[in-house]
């Protein structure tokens, strides 16, 4: 990749304009349910926000610190199972249970980190996959603890009472707001990381581990911090998912395709950026949802009940979302390894060069 073609400008997030845009978007999304009441739309919103959260979480360790874990399902699943089991077996409401889930994930990440961070590049990837698989297989096998392949079915979530206010969790609306808040939080967390010493150190590790080491960066500590943050946020998403979807089993939350999807969200949007996972989620989620549930397009009022397109997708493409994922990965890696954002950046750099903007580096030397 010719870095000069990127216009030579460093990526610093999007500055004040960017922050304002994000805040405006969040505000719009917050009032959205006042106007659109269809539960399916709110459902899609939650799914979208969840994908954003997963992507933002992975970004910290994969995008910034450059440690490509393809085993993040381990943390997602731990979050899901901890929250679910605490609720179903001990009647602990999820707003408390989630903290235990996060704690579990952080501890797990420290263990996994100490094992896998000694490895580099592809070996690290392989190890991260192995760990997630070990956990999945264990969850399937130790039925006494986890109910094995049977999984957990959520009975009910108690209402949350804060003072006079009582929030029930039967409809989609409270989930929508909770997910939106969480997504906003993870985006903020990413922004904070990027603009802190942590962010600089993570990126230094990504760019050149040995150089970073010799500049005073304690590699194990910082890698583990990145992973811990990432694991905590991923587990949060996992716990939320369990409460929202109301059923979990080892293959759905610990599976390799969960891990792959998480990585995809970041790759498609643009690795190591704040907006990347958002874009990636906005591409992946509608795509996979349309394929999984084409009737959804009818529910959204976009297509008539008897649409031939819906029938076609239903007949041929049920569960083809993985196929589309695969094609997407191939296309993105081959033609746009820096994701959508990379494509945009290269395009704008080309435009800027043609406009003869001042301060462009001369291609000398």
């Amino acid at each position: 990749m010719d870095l000069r073609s990127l216009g030579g400008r460093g990526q610093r997030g999007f500055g004040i304009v960017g922050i304002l845009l994000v805040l405006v978007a969040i505000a719009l999304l917050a009032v959205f349910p006042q106007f659109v009441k269809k539960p399916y739309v709110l459902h899609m919103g939650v799914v979208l926000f969840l994908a954003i959260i997963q992507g933002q979480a992975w970004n910290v360790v994969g995008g910034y610190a450059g440690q490509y874990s393809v085993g993040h399902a381990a943390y997602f699943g731990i979050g899901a199972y901890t929250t679910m089991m605490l609720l179903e077996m001990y009647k602990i409401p999820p707003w408390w249970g989630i903290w235990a889930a996060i704690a579990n994930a952080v501890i797990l990440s420290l263990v996994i980190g100490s094992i896998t961070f000694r490895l580099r590049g592809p070996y690290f990837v392989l190890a991260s996959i192995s760990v997630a698989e070990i956990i999945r297989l264990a969850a399937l096998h130790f039925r006494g603890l986890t109910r094995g392949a049977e999984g957990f079915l959520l009975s009910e979530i108690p209402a949350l009472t804060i003072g006079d206010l009582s929030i029930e969790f039967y409809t989609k609306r409270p989930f929508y707001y909770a997910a939106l808040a969480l997504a906003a939080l993870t985006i903020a967390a990413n922004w904070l990381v990027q603009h802190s010493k942590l962010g600089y150190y993570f990126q230094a590790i990504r760019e050149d581990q040995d150089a970073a080491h010799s500049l005073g960066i304690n590699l194990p500590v910082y890698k583990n911090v990145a992973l811990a943050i990432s694991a905590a946020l991923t587990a949060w998403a996992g716990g939320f998912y369990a409460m929202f979807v109301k059923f979990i089993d080892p293959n759905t939350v610990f599976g390799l395709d969960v891990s792959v999807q998480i990585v995809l969200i970041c790759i498609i949007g643009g690795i190591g950026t704040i907006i990347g996972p958002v874009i990636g989620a906005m591409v992946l989620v509608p795509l996979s949802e349309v394929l999984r549930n084409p009737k959804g397009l009818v529910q959204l009022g976009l297509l008539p009940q008897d649409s031939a397109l819906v029938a076609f997708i239903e007949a041929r493409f049920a569960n083809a979302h993985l196929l589309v994922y695969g094609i997407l990965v191939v296309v993105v890696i081959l033609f746009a390894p820096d994701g959508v954002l990379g494509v945009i950046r290269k395009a704008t750099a080309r435009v800027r060069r043609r406009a003869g903007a001042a301060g462009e580096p001369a291609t000398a030397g």
Partner: protein
Amino acid sequence: MTVFLQSVISGILVGGIYALIGIGLTIIFGVMRVINFAHGELMMLGMYATWIVFTMLGLDPFVSIVLVAPLLFLWGAFLQKVFINRVLNALPQNQILLTIGLGLVMSNTVMLIFTSDYRILTTSYSSSSYTLGEISISQPLLFAFLITAAITAALYWFLLKTDTGQAIRATAQDRDAAQLMGINVRAMSVLAFGIGAALSGTAGALISPTYYIFPQVGSAFTLKAFVIVVLGGMGSVVGATLGGVLVGLTESLAAVYVASGLKELVVFVAFLAVLLFKPSGLLGKTRA
């Protein structure tokens, strides 16, 4: 004692087939330094091809290797020329993701065409076994093992004695030097991927009389292949051979002495242990 011996023998027989998969993967890695995450899917394609040929032409799976192996070779060569070749100089993470993507496309396309129904390929000898005292040796597994041994021997001869084979080894050892010596390294990469795919597909054909055939069967074998290759040392054909047998043994013994449901988990744990303590493999080659 019989249980132990039985377990050992079954493990070694299956291990031979695993070795084929591992050898294919290690050749690909040796020549191109690419970690092929779609390796199990190549085996899955071999299984389906064998099944199709069996169902439509009545060809015995072991005989159909004559068709399946070249078919997979061509497919592997195609994949390398069109896709893998473009990422030879990319970040290893991107290479891995590309092969993961290709694997997803392969397994899900097969699912679209054949549905996820489990297929079984039953031959006249699928459940037959020879008896040696108190130990029973599965016939199909024994045949598979013998064929594997023959193929492995042929492969060694190819790599050691023929010009092309030596060219492949030279490319694996030092790509730049090989190029300077006039070896067409691009062609070697295509060849390597083709051979790797052919070996993997052959393993699929060999195991088809004794294994369920379904679109997702590949992923378990991909991971197993990696364990084998890391155990034996990335790029070492001998290592992969031994590693395959070792993994087969470990699985078999674990199924008996730990718990059947945990046998794969044990392999993964062993894998992590090797990655941590002897990343250059049990036979210890340099690159780690």
